[in-house]
């Protein structure tokens, strides 16, 4: 069945979709941090300059997105992303359309976490290599 053949691509497409979205937000924050300053909750602003916080947040998001693209440390990256989005939805946005969208992104990230390494991730390729090596050795 063609549909069954397509199944293995699902988790990869989800991983790349979330990574691309995250890259867009990360690069946008690095490009124009002033545009995002208004979204920082007041209790976070005591940590330092709002612009610096946006730069750090943008860099963090680009880093997570890069790991997701590569499929490297997929579970750790997606778990960090879930926590990150949870904090944004809970403490930064308040109830509204944007928060609901970010909630969707958080659940999608949770799906990546539950799925773990997919067939086209570096994690999977490395684990397959190890498994084959152990088979030959044992």
């Amino acid at each position, binding site marked *: 069945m063609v549909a069954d053949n397509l199944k293995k691509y699902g988790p990869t497409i989800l991983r790349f979709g979330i990574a691309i979205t995250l890259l867009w937000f990360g690069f*946008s924050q690095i490009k124009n941090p002033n*545009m995002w300053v208004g979204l920082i909750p007041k209790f976070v602003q005591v940590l330092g300059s709002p612009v610096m916080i946006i730069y750090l947040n943008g860099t963090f998001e680009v880093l997570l997105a890069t790991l997701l*693209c590569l499929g490297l440390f997929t579970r750790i990256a997606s778990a960090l992303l879930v926590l990150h989005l949870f904090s944004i939805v809970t403490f930064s946005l*308040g109830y*509204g359309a*944007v928060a609901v969208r970010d909630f969707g992104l958080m659940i999608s990230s949770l799906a990546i976490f539950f799925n773990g390494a997919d067939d086209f991730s*570096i994690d999977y390729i490395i684990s397959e290599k190890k498994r084959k090596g152990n088979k030959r050795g044992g």
Partner: protein
Amino acid sequence: MKKVVAVILLSVIVIALVAAVVFLYNPPKPNFQPNLNGNISAGGNYSGSGSYNQSYRPRYSGGSYGG
């Protein structure tokens, strides 16, 4: 090894494409400040360019204010 190189190449292409889109084109402004009314004002009054249009500058007429 080939698979790893392919995944890295694909990732580099994806990251470069998104970076190009963000840095070369001005994205729509996320003017979605949280507010208590539950309304989202997408777009808003943000001018984007950062330039100041002199024609809108209020000018002092030179006359008396008649206070």
